């Protein structure tokens, strides 16, 4: 089939019941171009790209390739036309290995022993371009960042004409993002086109040629990157000015809340994913753990929140030993959890929004009486979270799976923060949030810190870590490389520690 020289989406509209996800969206992209797609959570970016990839069909409008109208009925057609996509929510088969996942849609794979062949290809690919993945591991053993790498490699290795990337960098480290960008630039140089969705404005500005801004399903702005900047873009997106760097006031830390002593945790692929880690988190403190994902952070927070068993060491909350206690007990001790994989561990996709707002707390007196749930309070509780955290949703009586990724994240954060926890354990709290929502959440975290909660923040986003944390620990291969007060730390040192040097 002929290469994609120019692709147009013309007057695309899409409705979900009463929600207007896209309305008369038109744009075009030419070969060699990198087009940025921006918009608030729920603006309709994923919907638009799913229509282009034919995972869903538009209600109105058409797609033209090289000037000719094409009918794409399923991803199969899109793939044949040379379109590839990295999805916002991982489209991976949990019980299969990385190699099997990539072999699934790889036409070049031989009929017999496809996984072995693909594994070799992937290793070759990683050697040239970076983005390392271990081909023999099963997906369920991988952290979110590693899964993201697999998704990217899966799309890149196919060599497509037009590549759609829906928030590929949310859980990548800066280093990995850099590797990805150099690959994308090289692809564009070779005449491929790329559509890139991100909430990180610097990324959009540094890699894209043009940007489109979507708002409530409509295109509200388009510009070349030379003639715009961060503030202008943010204003176009949310319709108001965004404060990017806010002051963190200094607060004296309070008494000890969480103490982790010599903790040893078995992983899914190793005997020891966490190797004797110790640290303390105090009241009125945000304690950050930086590190490349897959270095034991996930296992660490799973143990603290009661989702995994430790094989040694202890965890104390307010002096009480909760090592290997059940998740219910841990949660009743006032520990909240924002998990790194929101769809898998943060929500029950098929339940309504209001039901999801009381997960883990449905048995509290406030929400239930004996055997019965008190739906009135539950619903008003849900309404207030939706309002305070600006969750875009048709109503609280919608199954939560119908929300956009960022809005699901806002709802989880709302649920966990409003529970008035003593300790909030948050992994990538602003994962997938738009600039407005990110600002709001960071402000909330700082405000709650002032009111006396302790926060354990796990993130690969150093900017976020520096902006929010009072102290920063760096994890590498299951050990803590050092703990620094934020004032004494700088990005270079933290970067070195993330690669394994001790401080």
């Amino acid at each position, binding site marked *: 089939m002929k290469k994609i020289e120019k692709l147009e989406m013309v007057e695309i509209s899409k409705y979900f019941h009463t929600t207007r996800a896209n309305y008369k969206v038109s744009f075009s992209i030419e070969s060699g171009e990198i087009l940025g797609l921006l918009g608030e959570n729920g603006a309709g970016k994923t919907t638009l790209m*799913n229509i282009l*990839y034919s*995972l*869903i*069909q538009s209600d109105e409008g058409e797609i033209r390739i090289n000037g000719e109208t094409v009918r794409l009925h*399923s*991803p*199969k057609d899109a*793939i*044949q036309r040379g379109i590839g*996509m990295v*999805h916002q929510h991982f*489209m*991976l*088969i*949990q*019980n*299969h290995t990385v190699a*099997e996942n990539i*072999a*699934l*849609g790889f036409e070049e*794979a*031989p*009929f*017999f*022993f*496809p*996984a072995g062949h693909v594994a070799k290809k992937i290793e070759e690919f990683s050697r040239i371009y970076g983005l390392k993945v271990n081909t023999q591991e*099963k997906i*369920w053993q991988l952290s979110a960042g590693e899964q993201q790498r697999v998704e990217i490699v899966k799309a890149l290795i196919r060599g497509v004409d037009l590549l759609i990337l829906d928030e590929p960098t949310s859980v990548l480290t800066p280093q990995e993002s850099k590797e990805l960008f150099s690959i994308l630039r090289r692809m564009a140089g070779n005449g491929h086109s790329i559509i890139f969705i991100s909430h990180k404005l610097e990324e959009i500005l540094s890699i894209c040629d043009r940007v489109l801004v979507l708002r409530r399903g409509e295109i509200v702005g388009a510009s070349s990157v030379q003639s715009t900047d961060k503030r202008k873009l943010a204003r176009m997106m949310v319709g108001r000015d965004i404060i990017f760097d806010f002051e963190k006031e200094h607060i004296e830390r309070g008494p000890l809340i969480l103490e982790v002593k010599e903790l040893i945790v078995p992983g899914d692929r190793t005997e020891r994913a966490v190797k004797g880690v110790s640290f303390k988190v105090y009241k009125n403190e945000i304690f950050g753990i930086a590190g490349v994902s897959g270095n034991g952070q996930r296992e660490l927070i799973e143990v603290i929140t009661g989702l995994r068993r430790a094989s040694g060491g202890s965890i104390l909350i307010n002096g009480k030993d909760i090592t290997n206690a059940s998740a219910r007990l841990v949660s009743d001790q006032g520990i909240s959890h924002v998990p790194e994989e929101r769809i898998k561990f943060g929500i029950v*996709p098929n339940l309504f929004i209001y039901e999801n707002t009381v997960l883990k707390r449905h048995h509290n007196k406030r929400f239930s009486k004996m055997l019965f749930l008190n739906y009135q309070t539950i619903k008003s509780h849900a309404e207030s979270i939706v309002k305070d955290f600006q969750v875009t949703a048709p109503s609280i009586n919608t199954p939560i*799976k*119908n929300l956009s990724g960022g809005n699901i994240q806002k709802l989880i954060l709302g649920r966990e923060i409003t529970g008035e926890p003593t300790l909030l354990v948050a992994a990538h709290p602003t994962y997938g949030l738009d600039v407005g929502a990110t600002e709001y959440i960071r402000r909330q975290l700082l405000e709650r810190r002032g009111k006396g909660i302790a926060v354990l923040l796990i993130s690969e986003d150093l900017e976020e870590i520096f902006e929010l944390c009072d102290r920063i620990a760096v994890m590498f291969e299951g050990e803590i490389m050092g703990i620094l007060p934020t004032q004494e730390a700088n990005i270079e040192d933290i970067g070195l520690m993330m690669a394994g040097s001790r401080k």
Partner: protein
Amino acid sequence: MDSILISVLNRTLVAGTPLLLATLGEIITERSGILNLGIEGMMAVGAVAGFIVTLATGSPWLGMASAILAGILISAIHAFVSISLKANQVVSGLALTMLGLGGASLFGRPFIGRPLPVKMAPFRIPILADIPLVGKVLFNQDPFFYLSLILGVLLWVLLSRTRWGIQIRSVGENPAASEAQGLNISTVRYICVLIGGGLAGMAGAHLSLIYSKSWTEGLTGGRGWIVIALTIFALWNPLRAFLGAYLFGCIFVLQYILQPIGIPPNLLGMMPYLATLAVLFAGGLKKGRRYLHAPAMLGEPYTKGER
């Protein structure tokens, strides 16, 4: 003594073959994400179709072919209802069992007790069949015994070592992700269900043409349910299905042998289910929680584009 042993082993393999064939069919069906509880019905239909056609044409080969066809046709009902109409697969499968059993006894009534005029001749593998004991047991069997061995190994290779295998398993694990990789979910599932139906039909005909060489009502005798248990016992792995099929086949044979010495056949009849529970139990105790995985989306209808 030797001859008793030989005959027990011999009958074990004969009794195990239909179990193996149908289990292989259920394995591929379930691997694609569709649960078919209609095995008992599909086997009954295959048994009757095979018997009638063999009587009419005098050719057991034609009988076998029509049994396979009958199995495919009746499984197509289940495929249509559960894949295209997205109905509840448990209900549809149970309905298939009743439909198949009812239809088989209706069409089979005039043929009850009629002897089979032609037999499927055992296929003697030269030289190997002369080995003492083993030769008589393994290398002087009906052709479908050998075929089932080949099919089992082929299915194992297909599922675990080929692109189609990855595709089938992926569809059963995560249809949305598979579709995003360019697969047509319905096509893959239809093919797998129909193959499963054909194998169940073949298993039924093995019962009427080779195992009992006659048709009686209730010939399948609950084997369809044993196959469901066997599929789990085998943990959806064709090679483990061999072990299970012959183990359970042996139980059928022992029922007759041990009855005279006072062991109730019902007790032995329970064994396949107990053995399946034991496997699940042992698997549950095993370290690493992902050991016992049924296809993740088994029994879930797939709607395109739904989140």
